[in-house]
């Protein structure tokens, strides 16, 4: 606006003032009633009574608006009511009106003139702020844009604000809502009704738990992904790890078996360590939690796998959020433990609200989703007879399947018999939570049970209690939080995964005879899965996690905090091997009866004193954290194995054993660290985050125990820059961040630096000692240098969110069991190897809010990870023991293989190239290689809400190769018959086998000969014939829920009720030649398909 225009406007204002001023005088009025009253220091109340007496006029006021005890000197003689009232209210911001016989006192409203004058002196704008439902929003900030003028809305949501300018823009903001702008001008002077929409964008005010501190998602400088209770609650799962599958970029979780309570492999951003320790660090409520099972090593891997998963003791329903920390900025504060990423689990807390009771109950059914097409009896017998014929032999007396001993017309679908059952799952939970400003509480109990798909009465049960108490508002001087999580699990399972028995000959006899007894079929059956199930494993485990955090605010911005944590995991295993589980044909005697009783425990104590300090320094805010960690971990187990029981019935009685053997293990691990975090934040736009840690771990020799780790992270919220605001209006959020740092890895067994001797078997009844390891005092930390750069943007009011990250992790100083030639007396020694492994990758995560109407909401999300693993350097790899395992420049997950030139059309055997022509097929001929890992993986999620219905689903996908397929069916070659083993059948793909000279095919002939076994074995183990595509697309999770309408619920006095139908692993599309492309095996139980229905009530 130029000067002349302003001038004209001013003249216009002035004219209006004069005109209105003359009109004002017309608004006065007079009343006829008179009052006579003289009294000094009379209260207004008395005066009003007098008015009523003399004039019959009622004086009406609103309580609180007028202090009627106020006194005046009444000196009225024949005064008009106007005179009286004006005198009475003089000096008070009140006015009155006379209506009929009532004098109504009210707050003085500006007269029209006042209004007009103020209007033109300072434009006063009125309005009201409400939410979408029309409820007032008190406390919203109304700011005149580009000025410092700002007010808050009052409790009714009303506001008035004065503007020096005649027109401009109001900027209305409120925590948790999307800010809105409204322009005002003389033609649009208000009053304004401002409706703020809730901000559903995940980018703003979402708080991320980074372990020792929290940070808003907007301002974080590191790579952290978060999964909330809502997502977890939609999945019918037993282990919290399952909730993360397919949802977090960079996180690869593989369920190794469908048997509940058993192992998972978890990797964040690939394999860093060549030899061991690729597990992320788990921290539950500030306590470090074991990543591997605690059951005694002397029991061997339970179920033939990696044993128990400690995370199966954590109830998914108890979890409020899971944060996955990936880059150096986020993980360096965990120092030597952060190399493989960190998974932080926070359990549920109370809310500042009235007491709520939440109950849910789910009933589910699980089945094996995918069966193999195996040879039927005719095809099988043809294959076996062909094998004998190919070898020029005749069936021997032990070839029961084809020599007429077993019925050639019998067919049993062993998959149906052995893994065809339905496992029922039941989940029940009851939570109570609430609180006020000073205290919040949460108390929950839950129960879970799951059967198995195997025949028999096996299962997994878990019960738990979770409680949390927080005292003192967080702004108070003293603030305490206390959480306890206890659970008990009971696994009554089998010792061996009998899934391998689906490969029994299809004409093998029934497993039970007419009397329902185990059928050994006249000693022709050596393996009866029903009998194998008698070898049972019953385990009870207790898990207690206690955490207390004491906060003491010394000054406004200086807080001393101490976190104390204690966790105990205890596990009792009871394993039995009754004699009846073995075929009588073996002729075993009572010495084969055995029972093992084992106790294991893992106790961790942690203390973490910390100081946090906040201050304004220079143009920004400074946030500092200094702290220390002390961790003491003691673990161990003892096992007593009894053998030689007189009868299967007394196996539970250890004293009935003829001989006892015992083994014990004990470990101690201590760890101390000093850490700091410095964060500098300028205008919430430029962020710098520095973390450092000095660590000491008892896993290293005395001179190698301490090391330093640290990281720097920075972020720039460029969307807040004026330039982007002005020019890229569609961009609602934009952030660039980058980080670099060093973390370490100490995931090696304890005591490796000590030369130790362990108990051997007794000799002449006396104890013996045998060497336990070769010691190396000089090994130190494995280093992991992590680099990351990422872009986060929100478009169109954050309707579209995209996060793209690129990372590069380099792990060096590799801690490996350095393989030794056996002539040294040992196979390996722990040592640092001069090798570097690099993991790079791209991670994409997006979220689209397609619809956000009152009745319809629809959003889709997606994530994709493209990992790349590479062995960068390995000095003298050729002369090392890894010479035939790895190739520099290639991923660790390659396998060096022979050149298998298909099937020799004359012999029918795998034709393997003798590369160096020395007449032998050995390691030196393995000159090719194949990749056996993931090319990419990710998930697509979809969420649709229509009125009270909600449909969510997640599709997970992976493109990968597996080095395990149908050929690894126990090591037997096609056509081979081992009457003591169960693994003689094959998938139908073997129908394409070589049959006669001239056949061109890729599957070897059936044969029982040694030559064919060798060719098969070479092709399978180092020929890459078992490396095949195991890519899959899986409908991982579906959840359909219906919220019962409030109208119905109000009558029942229920706050919320939801009926849900949930499914997991619904279907899978894959070409994989085995049971399941995730567990990648033909002989272990695959992850199950689960359908579950349930009710969730909140009272």
């Amino acid at each position, binding site marked *: 606006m130029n000067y002349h225009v302003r001038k004209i406007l001013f003249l216009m204002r002035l004219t209006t003032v004069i005109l209105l001023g003359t009109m004002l005088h017309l608004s006065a009025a007079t009343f006829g009633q008179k009052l006579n009253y003289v009294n000094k220091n009379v209260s207004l109340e008395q005066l009003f009574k007098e008015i009523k007496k003399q004039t019959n006029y009622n004086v009406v006021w609103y309580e609180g608006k007028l202090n009627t005890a106020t006194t005046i000197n009444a000196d009225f003689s024949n005064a008009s009511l106007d005179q009286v009232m004006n005198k009475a209210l003089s000096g008070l911001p009140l006015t009155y009106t006379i209506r009929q016989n009532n004098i109504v006192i009210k707050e003085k409203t500006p007269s029209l003139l006042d209004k007009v004058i103020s209007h033109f002196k300072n434009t006063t704008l009125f309005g009201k702020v409400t939410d979408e439902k029309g409820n007032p929003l008190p406390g919203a900030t109304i700011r005149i844009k580009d000025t410092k003028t700002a007010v808050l809305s009052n409790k009714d949501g009303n506001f008035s604000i004065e503007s020096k300018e005649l027109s401009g823009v109001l900027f209305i903001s409120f925590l948790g809502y999307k800010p809105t702008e409204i322009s005002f001008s003389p033609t649009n002077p208000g009053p304004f009704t401002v409706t703020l929409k809730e901000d559903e964008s995940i980018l703003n005010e979402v708080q991320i738990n980074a372990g020792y501190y929290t940070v808003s998602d907007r301002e974080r400088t590191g790579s952290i992904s978060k999964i909330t209770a809502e997502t977890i609650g939609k999945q019918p799962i037993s282990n919290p790890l399952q909730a993360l599958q397919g949802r977090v970029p960079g996180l690869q979780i593989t369920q190794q078996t469908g048997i509940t309570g058993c192992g998972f492999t978890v990797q964040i951003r690939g394999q860093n360590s060549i030899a061991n320790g690729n597990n992320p660090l788990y921290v539950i409520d500030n306590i470090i939690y074991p990543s591997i099972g605690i059951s005694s090593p002397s029991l061997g891997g339970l179920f033939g796998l990696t044993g128990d998963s400690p995370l199966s003791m954590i109830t998914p329903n108890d979890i409020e959020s899971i944060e996955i920390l990936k880059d150096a900025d986020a993980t360096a504060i965990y120092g030597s433990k952060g190399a493989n990423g960190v998974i932080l689990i926070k359990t549920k807390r109370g809310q500042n609200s009235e007491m709520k009771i939440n109950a849910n109950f789910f009933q589910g059914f699980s089945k094996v989703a995918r069966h193999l097409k195996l040879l039927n009896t005719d095809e099988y017998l043809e294959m076996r007879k062909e094998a004998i014929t190919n070898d020029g032999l005749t069936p021997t007396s032990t070839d029961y399947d084809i020599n007429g001993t077993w019925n050639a017309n019998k067919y049993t679908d062993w998959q149906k018999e052995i893994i065809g059952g339905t496992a029922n799952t039941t989940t029940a939970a009851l939570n109570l939570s609430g609180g006020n400003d000073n205290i919040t509480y949460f108390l929950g109990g839950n129960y879970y049970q799951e059967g198995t798909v195997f025949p028999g009465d096996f299962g997994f049960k878990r019960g738990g209690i979770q409680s949390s108490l927080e005292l003192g508002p967080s702004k108070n001087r003293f603030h305490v939080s206390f959480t306890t999580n206890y659970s008990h699990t009971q696994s009554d399972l089998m010792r061996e995964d009998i899934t391998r028995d689906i490969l029994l000959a299809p004409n093998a006899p029934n497993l039970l005879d007419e009397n329902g007894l185990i059928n050994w079929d006249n000693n022709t059956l050596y393996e009866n899965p029903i009998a194998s199930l008698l070898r049972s494993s019953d385990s009870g485990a207790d898990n207690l996690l206690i955490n207390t955090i004491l906060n003491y605010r010394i000054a406004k911005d200086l807080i001393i905090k101490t976190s104390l944590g204690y966790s105990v995991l205890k596990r009792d295993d009871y394993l039995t091997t009754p004699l009846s589980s073995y075929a009588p044909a073996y002729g075993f005697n009572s*010495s084969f009866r055995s029972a093992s009783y084992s106790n294991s425990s893992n106790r961790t104590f942690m203390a973490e004193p910390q100081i946090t300090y906040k201050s304004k320094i220079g143009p920004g805010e400074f946030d500092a954290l200094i702290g220390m960690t002390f961790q003491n971990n003691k673990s161990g187990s003892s096992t007593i194995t009894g053998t030689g029981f007189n009868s299967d019935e007394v196996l539970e009685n250890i004293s009935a054993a003829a001989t006892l053997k015992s083994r014990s293990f004990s470990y101690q691990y201590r760890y101390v660290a000093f850490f700091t975090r410095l964060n500098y934040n300028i205008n919430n736009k430029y962020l710098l985050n520095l973390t450092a840690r000095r660590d000491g771990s008892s896993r290293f020799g005395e001179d190698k125990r*301490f090391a330093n780790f640290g990281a720097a992270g920075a972020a720039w919220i460029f969307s807040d820059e004026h330039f982007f605001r002005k020019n890229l209006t569609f961009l609602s959020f934009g952030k660039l961040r980058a980080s670099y740092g060093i973390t370490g890895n100490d995931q090696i067994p304890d*005591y490796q630096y000590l030369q130790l001797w362990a108990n051997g078997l007794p000799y002449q009844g006396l104890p013996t000692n045998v060497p336990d390891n070769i010691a190396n005092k000089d090994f130190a930390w494995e280093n992991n240098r992590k680099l990351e750069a990422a872009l986060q943007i929100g478009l169109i009011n954050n309707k579209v969110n995209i996060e793209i990250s690129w990372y590069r992790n380099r792990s060096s100083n590799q801690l490996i069991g350095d393989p030794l030639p056996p002539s040294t007396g040992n*196979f390996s020694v722990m040592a640092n190897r001069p090798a570097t492994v690099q993991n790079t990758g791209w991670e994409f995560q997006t979220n689209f809010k397609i619809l956000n109407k009152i009745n319809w909401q629809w959003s889709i999300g997606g994530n994709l990870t493209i990992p790349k693993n590479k062995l960068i350097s390995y000095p003298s790899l050729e002369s090392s023991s890894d010479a035939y395992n790895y190739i520099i420049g290639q991923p660790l997950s390659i396998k060096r293989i022979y050149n298998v030139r298909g099937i020799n059309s004359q012999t029918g055997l795998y034709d393997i190239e003798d590369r160096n022509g020395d007449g032998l097929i*050995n390691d030196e001929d393995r000159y090719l290689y194949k990749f056996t890992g993931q090319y990419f993986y990710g998930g697509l999620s979809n969420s649709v809400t229509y009125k009270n219905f909600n449909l969510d689903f997640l599709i997970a996908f992976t493109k990968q190769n597996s080095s395990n397929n149908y050929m690894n069916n126990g090591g037997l070659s096609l056509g081979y018959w081992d009457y003591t083993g169960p693994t003689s059948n094959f998938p139908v793909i073997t129908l394409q086998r070589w049959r006669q000279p001239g056949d061109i095919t890729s599957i070897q002939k059936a044969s029982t000969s040694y030559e064919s076994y060798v060719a098969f074995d070479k092709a399978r183990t180092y020929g890459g014939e078992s490396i095949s595509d195991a890519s899959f697309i899986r409908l991982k999770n579906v959840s359909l829920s219906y919220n019962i309408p409030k109208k119905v619920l109000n009558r029942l006095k229920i706050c919320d009720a939801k009926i849900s139908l949930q499914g997991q692993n619904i279907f899978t599309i894959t070409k994989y030649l085995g049971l399941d492309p995730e567990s990648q095996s033909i002989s272990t139980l695959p992850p199950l398909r689960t359908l579950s229905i349930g009710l969730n009530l909140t009272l």
Partner: protein
Amino acid sequence: MKHILLLGALILINSFFVSCKKLIDIDPPKNKLSQETLFQSDDLATSVVTGIYSRMAISQGSGSIHHLCGLSADEFINYNVGFAEFYKNKITTISSSNTSLYSNCYSLIYSANALLEGLEGPNKVSQSIKKQLQGEALFIRAFHYFYLVNLYGPVPIQLITDYNVTRKEPRSSVDLVYKQIITDLKSSETLLTDTYITTDRVRPNLSTVDALLARVYLYTKDWANAEKYASLVISKSKLYNLEDPDKVFLKNSNEAIWQLFPPVNGNTEEGNFFILSSIPYNVSLSKDFMLQTFEINDKRKTNWTNSYTEGTETFFYPFKYKLQYTTAVTEYSMVLRLAEQFLIRAEARTQQDKLSNAIDDIDRIRSRAGLTLLRDNNPTISKADLLILIQKERKAEFFSEWGHRWFDLKRTNQINLVLSPIKINWKSTDALYPIPFEETTRNQNVKQNDGY
């Protein structure tokens, strides 16, 4: 206020660095012993050598030599996929049976070396026990090098435990290995006495050392010394006498020079392994072997073999050890016995043209087997025929024991002659097992045997 806080923080930091070294001190695990503790008492030091014997007594230890060498030779028929490579004489470098055969020997040698080093260093072991343990450790080392050199030919000689040195050790020639064996045995000889240190004959004594020396000299064709050391043992007739065939393998049999105490819960692993109570799933004695080995009325056939019949098929098995899974222990696992010393001496004497003396020795064995005596039958037998007869006698005497048959075929150069007719694609290089790939890939100084 700020200054106090700063000071407090500094004190905290300082005390942290001082005390944190102590904070992470831990005790050794309760279930294990450190190397230092091990040599603080006689009993603990002794537990190292007994640890070696207890491991030897397990079938997957050196005991697997019985069936693996028997399969490679002409003794057994195989039913187990894991042993097939041995039966077919097509052992691959990645064979796990072969790897454990090789690595178990070295693992026990490592223990022996660790024991010797521990006894050299600061320790509280009494002089007499120290002498005994050193003698045993040297014997054990020699014993296992004997098997290594016969199974694999030239092998690395490891005399210390430092893996930084041993991991680079190249193979030494057969001569050098034998030289080392003899050196160790000679040293051991000076340290041990004729007393068995414990009840039973389950820990080596002086005669055990001499018996092995006699065998080593026989293998190295030092006939005079072979005769000398065999005679040394044979002469101790108060200790050692031939037993009736059914009593030879009993514990503390008079024929035993050295036996192994069976592992917990039972009798010998050999009994467990060989005795058939069903169709075999490991090995059975070959029918040809049964037919060709024993003369009529040989008590060894009736006493030391047995058969299991199912339907029309009969399977034979070694029955030297008669007990399988019983807990009443009456049999110990025989390692060295007197009969071998007679046959060593017979062979050594024959080679030195002392035919008549040799016939005496052979007749001791034949008469125990209930056979006619050579002295009566054929007293003028030629040297060459006598040598053949000795081998025939050894075959009948030592089948299924410690690889005798396989080694005898090799050292008498009969192996190609005997095995090429019965083994498909027999190659002379099959006489040596391959060095496991773990050795050749991890120690670039070790080269593979020919043919692998």
